[in-house]
């Protein structure tokens, strides 16, 4: 590398531009509505946590935050656990219809939520799951299960097949081999997969709002509803928006060292 100054500066400019809308949201969330409407200010002159306090004091918001986190967690656990054996099978064996099946799974990854919203509504209504966290968790399996299979298949491929054979010779039964030897070997892969499942379930809102009405309304939906109800409480809206970024930021911090590798190996 001859010169590293120009790339550094470009990178810093890009990252600052990326953070500008986020910063603006934080800025507004720390000001009162009267303050916001009275004119532009590049930083909050009289910062206040009033709106955050209001959100934490309101059971609707707190409940909705719990709802969002629980369907995301349920979905991640289901997706990763059903995808593990499938990823192993796709990588290690050939069987009738394997290629077609893999392609078909892959197409579900691309399924447009708008196409599925209405049929899902009918389906979950019919089986009595409408307005529960399970409806959203299962609906998000539509794209997260294929995604998990796809990423994990890449990680399974990174483990040499000799390990399977040695374990079989050493007298390991298959379940014991899979759980005790194989899973620890792809632990990073499982982490990265869980991260992506978390991400896509956390950000998806069309299905999440279509399949819930009051009991299991996700956080971001309460947000949309609150601004139609109370006129424009910009400051409250901004504070809620800032809060929705927190779980994502926390999760990504944990996988930061694996994320690039996950992208390369897992071909997300």
């Amino acid at each position, binding site marked *: 590398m001859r010169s590293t100054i120009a790339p550094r500066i470009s*990178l810093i400019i890009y990252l600052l531009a990326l953070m*500008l809308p986020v910063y603006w949201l934080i800025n507004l969330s720390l000001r009162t509505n009267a303050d916001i409407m009275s004119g532009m200010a590049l930083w909050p002159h009289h910062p206040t946590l009033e709106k955050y306090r209001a959100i934490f004091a309101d059971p609707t918001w707190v409940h909705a935050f719990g709802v969002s986190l629980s369907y995301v967690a349920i979905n991640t656990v289901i997706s990763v656990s059903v995808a593990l054996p499938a990823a192993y099978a796709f990588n290690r064996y050939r069987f009738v219809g394997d290629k077609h099946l893999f392609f078909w799974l892959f197409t579900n990854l691309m399924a447009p939520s708008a196409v599925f919203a209405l049929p899902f509504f009918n389906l979950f209504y019919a089986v009595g799951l409408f307005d529960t966290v399970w409806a959203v968790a299962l609906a998000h399996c539509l794209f997260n299960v294929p995604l998990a299979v796809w990423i994990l298949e890449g990680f399974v491929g990174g483990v040499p097949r000799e390990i399977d054979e040695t374990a079989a010779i050493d007298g390991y039964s298959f379940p014991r081999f899979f759980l005790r030897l194989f899973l620890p070997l792809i632990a990073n892969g499982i982490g990265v997969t869980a991260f992506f499942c978390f991400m896509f379930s956390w950000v998806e809102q069309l299905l999440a709002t279509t399949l819930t009405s009051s009991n299991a309304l996700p956080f971001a939906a309460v947000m949309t509803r609150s601004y139609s109800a109370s006129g424009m409480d910009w400051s409250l809206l901004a504070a809620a928006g800032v809060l929705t970024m927190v779980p994502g930021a926390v999760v990504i911090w944990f996988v930061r060292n694996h994320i*690039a590798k996950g992208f390369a190996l897992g071909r997300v």
Partner: protein
Amino acid sequence: MMDKPWNNKAWFFILPVLALVLFSSVLPVMTVVNYSLQDSMGVNNFFWNGDAWFRDLLDPSTEIGARFADALLRTFAFSFAALAVEIPLGIAVALCLPRRGWAVGISLVVTALPMLIPWNVVGTMWQIFARQDIGLFGAALTGIGLPYNVTQDSVSAWVTIVVIDVWHWTPLVILLSYAGLRAIPDAYYQAARIDGASRWAVFVNIELPKLRKVLVIAVLLRFMQTFMIYTEPVVVTGGGPGSATTFLSIDLVKIAIGQVDVGSAAAMSLVYYIIILTACWIFFTIMTQLERRGDS
């Protein structure tokens, strides 16, 4: 990978996935197929309608057909505009990212953050950011004398939606390209240095060929996601002004839920889905071909 053992018992490993996907994908799709062939008179009173919805939809001289053709064109234009910015920008930023040291972690976390924000929050954030009275972006553009107004002016609305998508999803292209770049052995760069190759020559002859595979994936994912865009334009422009930013997904939801016109919405869904499947199949074929070439 031709030496994989043939074993049909592997199907048992696939069963849980299959059961789940049958429930969450095949069942809903069949419901859509069912709707698309029927007409309804009030609630739960359906009768056979054959292919009439499809004939209307694919004939641009009917009202729904014209609407569909317009939305389709707009969606393609949007996908194209977003990809044209995101792919070059993503590669450029990936080239600037540090390869080692303390700055790697923090740069990656900051880069990836926009992708972890719920989509309607992204919409709300930009709705605020683009306003002339309280938003920095809107105020700055108006301040330098540009006729900028998201809700009134269709050019502004378009620019805003594309900027939002670039802001939101260029990180995906960056992370993919960065992963591809990290897979290039240092020896390649050393060889280039000995040969006295210029920065541009290194990019064209070493980096770009190695990036081909991840770029195919990036183009595929970004095409699909832009083609399905829904939440952000709904929040920011509501599909307007007029129908300037009414993309396919938005129109679909408007017809299905807003107008309760289930039959034509279902037919539209299927045509839309078939376009996506075709694109998917083309990309998948290219990708497996690339992988096979990489193996040999």
